[in-house]
């Protein structure tokens, strides 16, 4: 028998052993009885339900589920969200497929294209140029999964020719995608494409301008919608504080087209640490919006982008009255934790740039505070891109961290008795085995969760 046959044979042999009956019918019945008691609100805690875990790690509390559960209504019970499959934590391809499917279904454009690409020209654009059509075809090929026979119906947002390179920005209202192509035709160079989901960008109010998205690679591209009454939109690029001078600050006029704006710049003209802002005029006054203002420094006030980022985190939850608890950016990702007056929280690890897609979202009550000098893990989530663990800490806890077996330390963010630790680099196995460590105000070190 060949090696391949032996492996296939293993599957068949295992399938013959697949359990078809309960490994313990009595426990199965007991579990069903516990479920029925919880649903009927008759669980007095004396039945055969096993004792509950201590240390705050038990996600669901049957007692909390009791009141009114059997009224037939779908309960938004917040603590469920922490354990149900995290739809937003799927792979990029799955996310793309889902978005394309939803967008296509909404627009009714499925099945338009088989082999050739038929562009739906934007109302004011006239016939698509060769460059535009080429860009549209490239974007479709890269962004639309093969199994979808779909024309995204790209329309032109902006197009420029700079330094021998055609720069094209297209938008697909049907799918919510915006795509960028750079085609160095004059130099006989390469073509590159990028796509972003930007349908989450809110429509700006009168006199306001907002950011739909940015691409920063060989070229820096920014675009977004313009509200009524806003004009003379410019992009201002200020290098970092060390070498800032009036002469080094660059201001570029944005192209305004209909209800949108866009800017193209060579990528190296926007240093990574530069402060980039939108500046525009509305009703006789000059207004501005820092493009990195989604993530605030101490003392800074929230901007439209801050709110956009928070909405991207909380839109999928039904938790009312949230206010920011922890907001930190680390390179291309950031952490947003929001809490309300009932101490219900929503926590996201999300893209640092618009549209601030969440990669890992958890939510639940944060009212299970442990004893004063104790920290306890509560619940975690894991995706390919990031892992997260949240928990509670008593009043006397000064800091919390996770330590993996190889000595890696992941410091947690701690606020209002709630902590969040997360990592994009620690592997799943090491993450699961990580030890919870906390320090009290007196400097003493403690470990858990056994001691919690």
């Amino acid at each position: 028998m060949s090696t391949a046959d032996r492996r296939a044979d293993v599957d068949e042999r295992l399938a013959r052993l697949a359990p078809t009956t309960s490994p313990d019918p009595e426990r199965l019945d007991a579990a069903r009885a516990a479920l029925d008691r919880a649903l009927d609100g008759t669980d007095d805690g004396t039945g055969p339900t096993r004792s509950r875990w201590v240390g705050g790690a038990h996600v669901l509390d049957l007692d909390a589920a009791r009141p009114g559960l059997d009224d037939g209504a779908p309960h938004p019970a917040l603590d469920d969200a922490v354990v149900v499959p995290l739809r937003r934590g799927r792979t990029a391809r799955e996310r793309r497929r889902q978005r394309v499917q939803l967008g296509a279904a909404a627009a009714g454009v499925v099945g338009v294209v088989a082999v050739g690409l038929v562009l739906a020209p934007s109302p004011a654009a006239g016939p698509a140029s060769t460059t535009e059509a080429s860009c549209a075809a490239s974007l479709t090929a890269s962004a639309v999964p093969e199994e979808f026979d779909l024309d995204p119906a790209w329309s032109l947002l902006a197009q420029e020719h700079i330094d021998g390179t055609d720069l094209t920005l297209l938008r697909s209202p049907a799918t919510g995608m915006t795509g960028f192509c750079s085609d160095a035709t004059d130099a006989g160079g390469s073509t590159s494409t990028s796509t972003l989901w930007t349908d989450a960008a809110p429509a700006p109010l009168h006199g306001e301008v907002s950011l739909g998205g940015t691409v920063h690679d060989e070229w820096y591209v920014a675009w977004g919608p313009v509200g009524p009454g806003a004009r003379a939109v410019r992009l201002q690029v200020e290098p970092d504080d060390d070498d800032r001078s009036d002469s080094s600050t660059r201001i570029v006029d944005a192209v305004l087209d209909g209800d949108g704006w866009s800017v193209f710049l060579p990528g190296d003209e926007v240093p990574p640490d530069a402060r980039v802002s939108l500046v525009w005029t509305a009703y006789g006054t000059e207004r501005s919006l820092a493009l990195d203002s989604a993530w605030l420094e101490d003392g800074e006030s929230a901007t439209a982008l801050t709110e956009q980022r928070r909405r991207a985190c909380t839109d999928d939850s039904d938790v009312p009255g949230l206010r920011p608890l922890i907001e930190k950016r680390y390179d291309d990702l950031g952490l947003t934790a929001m809490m309300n007056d009932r101490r219900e929280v929503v926590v996201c690890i999300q893209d640092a740039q618009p549209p601030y897609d969440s990669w890992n979202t958890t939510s639940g009550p944060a009212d299970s505070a442990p004893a004063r000098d104790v920290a306890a893990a509560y619940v975690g989530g894991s995706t390919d891109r990031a892992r997260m663990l949240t928990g509670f800490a008593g009043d006397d806890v000064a800091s919390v961290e996770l330590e993996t077996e190889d000595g890696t330390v992941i410091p947690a963010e701690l606020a209002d008795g709630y902590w969040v630790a997360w990592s994009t680099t620690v592997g799943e196995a090491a993450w699961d085995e990580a030890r919870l460590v906390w320090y009290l105000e007196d400097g003493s070190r403690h470990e858990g969760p056994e001691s919690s």
Partner: protein
Amino acid sequence: MSTPDDAAERRERLSALWSAHAVRVQAYLWRRTDPDTAQDVLSETFLVAWRRLDDVPDPALPWLLVVARNLVRNAHRAARRRRTLDDELAALEASAPLPEAAPEALAVERDALLRGLARLGEREREAILLVAWDGLTPADAADVAGCSTATFHVRLHRARRRLAALADNPADRPGAPRSPAPSRRTA
């Protein structure tokens, strides 16, 4: 506002979910945790399903297994217990009981395969059993395992290869007695 009919309909749907999947979820939990915890998590998994009944997809099993897996992970995070090889083997034997009238050959086969499974890493073991025992597609199983489909295929491939070797070549098993090596010495 919901009506009594709504409530009855929801209870009926939950009961149907229980009838269709409770045994499978219980067997999955027995592979991953102790019987006491499995009992708790089983009822709580379906309590989550009750609360999120409108979100439960069809087929429901992958969704239920993800909920169960997350509940177990959080339980273990509190308990920090490690299972020995004997624990793993006992859990596998308990989760897949041998039918009473099973032939001797099947019992022998079961012993070899379960011992091989117990020696696999946890993720490899889960990968192969989600497919072979729980009947999930690799894409659904990847969701349950919390990884991408591509990563899952790699795990599954590795698990099959290792299990085939461990089940069919006892000498490959770590710690298994080996035959004496042929001696080159001559008198």
